[in-house]
């Protein structure tokens, strides 16, 4: 199987991200106009100068017309993209490949979700007619299966492991408190999270991603054109996507301590980018912390730690803002909020500002000369998942 990647052939030259909030006063169209406008300004372009558009939204709209109308695009190819919670990254992947192919010189990837108009808390799936035998389990419950499985496999006390993942939420709230765009900007302690009532397995509400409206956008161009737009472009080093076949749910050998689709996407991405020691080479990682146990096992599946050891690194602060490899420096899904279609592009936005040293000072990381960031964005559940892993960097290899 070939996966050649498009190392250094496409660059991000502008990005924008709206605040992620319960935007009772903003529509999907408003969010799209705002995010697109920020990205246009960032790159110094107008909407007519871009050749093509990819619009990622999970459930808030259908078809490219839903972007072309609010932006009043004229005569542009606009494609709507959907790939569960990895929708935003998928929009970017499609835009990058279109530019790399030579079909277009420039494109926008924009993702948005308007989740708070539904009248219910949480995210709710669009109903597709079925025979009625599908699982009705929530995502929180599916991901809660990780904790007892991990505790058993690696001999970690279940109460201690519960504290470990609460520590992940504490870290992400700490980072989010220093991010004006984030939904939740209050610090919270692991102790307080452990005291909260369980909603799924041992997970509390504070182990779950925030549910917010929001939008984010990126403008990509041919790498050789990047400096016409900015002195500090981000080059696409890797774009990998692996869609699982659902086998994990019916395979008795699957034990819920790993997310194989994520590990496979990471392996592919590292090969595309030529990375051999991610923990030493990456300046930061933005990962899909939809639930706290997800971030725990991702540290192993993305190759930052050996299997069974991530829980120690979490306690040691390895992934803190000042740690060896800062993870979710913007607060992650946990604190920044999770407007499904926007989240993947929001993750890239954090890489955009951190690698360019533009993050707010109180959460700006010390890159120690490292120039690359990893973005991990997944959709689905343990056993039935798709995973995106991308890598961006400020330097040409």
């Amino acid at each position, binding site marked *: 199987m070939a996966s050649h990647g498009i190392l250094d052939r496409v660059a991000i030259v502008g990005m924008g991200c709206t605040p992620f909030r319960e935007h009772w006063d903003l529509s999907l169209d408003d969010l799209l106009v705002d995010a697109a406008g920020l990205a246009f300004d960032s790159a110094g372009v107008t909407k007519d100068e871009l050749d093509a558009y990819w619009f990622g939204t999970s459930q808030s709209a259908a078809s490219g017309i839903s972007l072309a109308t609010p932006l009043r695009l004229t005569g542009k190819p606009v494609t709507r993209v959907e790939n569960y919670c990895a929708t935003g990254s998928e929009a970017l992947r499609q835009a990058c490949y279109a530019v790399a192919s030579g079909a277009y010189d420039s494109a926008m990837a924009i993702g948005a979700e308007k989740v708070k108009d*539904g009248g*219910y*808390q*949480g995210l*709710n799936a669009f*109903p*597709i*007619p*079925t*025979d*009625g*035998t599908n*699982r*009705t*389990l*929530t995502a*929180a*419950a*599916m991901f*809660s*299966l990780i904790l*007892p*499985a991990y505790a*058993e496999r690696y001999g970690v006390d279940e109460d201690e492991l519960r504290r470990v993942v609460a520590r992940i939420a504490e870290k992400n709230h700490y980072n989010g408190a220093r991010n004006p765009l984030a939904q939740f900007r209050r610090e919270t302690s692991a102790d307080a999270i452990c005291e909260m009532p*369980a*909603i*799924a*397995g041992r997970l509390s509400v504070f182990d779950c991603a925030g549910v917010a409206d929001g939008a984010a956008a990126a403008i990509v161009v041919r790498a050789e054109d990047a400096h016409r737009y900015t002195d500090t472009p981000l080059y696409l080093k890797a774009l990998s996507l692996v869609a699982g*076949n*659902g*086998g994990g*749910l*019916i*395979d*008795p050998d699957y034990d*819920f301590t790993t997310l194989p689709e994520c590990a496979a996407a990471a392996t592919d991405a590292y090969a595309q980018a030529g990375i051999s020691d991610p923990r030493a080479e990456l300046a930061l990682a933005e990962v899909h912390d939809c639930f706290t146990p997800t971030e725990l096992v991702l540290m192993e599946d993305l190759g930052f730690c050996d299997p069974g050891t991530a829980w120690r690194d979490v306690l040691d602060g390895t992934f803190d803002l000042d740690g060896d490899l800062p993870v979710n420096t913007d607060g992650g899904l946990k604190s920044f909020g999770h407007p499904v279609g926007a989240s993947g592009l929001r993750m890239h936005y954090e890489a955009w500002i951190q690698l360019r040293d533009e993050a707010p000072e109180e959460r700006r990381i010390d890159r120690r000369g490292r120039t690359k960031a990893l973005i991990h964005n997944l959709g689905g559940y343990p*056993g039935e998942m798709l995973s995106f892993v991308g890598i961006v960097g400020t330097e040409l290899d």
Partner: protein
Amino acid sequence: MTETRGILAYGTHVPYHRLDRAAITGVMGSGGGRGCRAVASFDQDTTTMGVEAARQALGTGASSGPTPDALWFSTVAPAYLDKTNATTVHAALQLDAAVPALDLGGAVRSAAGALRAALTGPGRTLVVASDLRVGLPTSADEADGGDAAAAILTGSSADGPLLADYLGGASATAEFLDRWRTPGDATSSTWEERFGEQAYGPLLDRAWAAALADTGLAADGIDTAIVTGLHGRAVRRLGGRLGVAIADDLADTVGNSGAAHPTLLLAHTLDTADAGQVVALVVLADGAEVLLFQTTGALAAGRPSRSVAAQIADRVDVAYPTYLSWRGLLEVEPPNRPAPNRPSASASLRRSEWKYGFVGSRDATTGITHLPPSRVGIDGGAVDDMEPAPMADTGGTIATFTVDRLAYSPSPPIVFAVVDFDGGGRMPVELTDVDPAEVAVGDRVAMTFRRLHTADGIHNYFWKARPVRG
């Protein structure tokens, strides 16, 4: 020698939940009584209980015997009108399309009549009786009723060993208002009790005498009489004058399960009867039905896997307000989640074997079981290289589980387990009849047919797993 007809097999279902009658008095200040009644869970209806009883009657694996060539389903509380409910039972049992499935509904009497018709008619008929008894709070029907199902496979000695021979019987019919329910109402009304007793007396006398004449038996040749009917006073008083030992009516442990009760009590008697015993089944319902049986030497080896007594012992109390909410008599705030979608009729038909029969597929090359069935295997990639994998009767072990307090359920929380089936196959599946605090990895489970929810008036039937206790 003429062919003898009788009972080839039987099975019962007593739900797991009980309502302590004192709990009614405790909340309402009146009503209730002593003992407890059986309560169908929120995910059960007469159809699903009927499926469980029928599955037991038909047995599984090595214990399976003759198969029915007709299925009759009788209930007073049908899940659907206009549409046949027996077809759901038929699908859950994976019976051949050539086996007709019919509802005999409307009145409690229909179930006893179905049994008589099956015993006197040709062929092997599986008669399934199921009832879900609801009364207004503090009413006698609420306290005295019980939810249960029972199934009997009738046939001849040529079909296999009869567990009990049908000796004969008689019937008496009259039109009078003992109790009634207008279509659409959930509960029944009754006329003054003393009137019914007076009306039933001569009808029982007549049917009893005719049954004895039909069989050539005298009362002292009958070992046990099962006397049942919804008119408690008539059953008590008139039964006493038959001059025969009266069987336990399960009033204190199950309650009166209406249409199901005659079959349930007969099954309960068969669970412990010795060979050669003569049993009278007497049903008072808009007349009188008398059916006489004699147990055979085949009974001891032909009993179902779970006796009525074992099911009575496997129980948990349900709080009275919870019971009321399950029956729709107390409306509680639904979970703040979108209500589930109605299942698609066409998708359900395409996947009937899976949805109703719990039949997955097994990769003929790799042997891997796929739940739900799949055209392409997860290993090897062959297309349409699958065999049917019926899993409804396969036990399993809980590999891991979680308690979901967010997901929509008519009675939260949902307990979900990843179940590894004996001999291969895994599936994440909802548990039922379960205490979230008592589930453990390694627990054994069995599959059970349930109603997941109802949307737009469409009942969404599928399978759940229930813990196997003891």
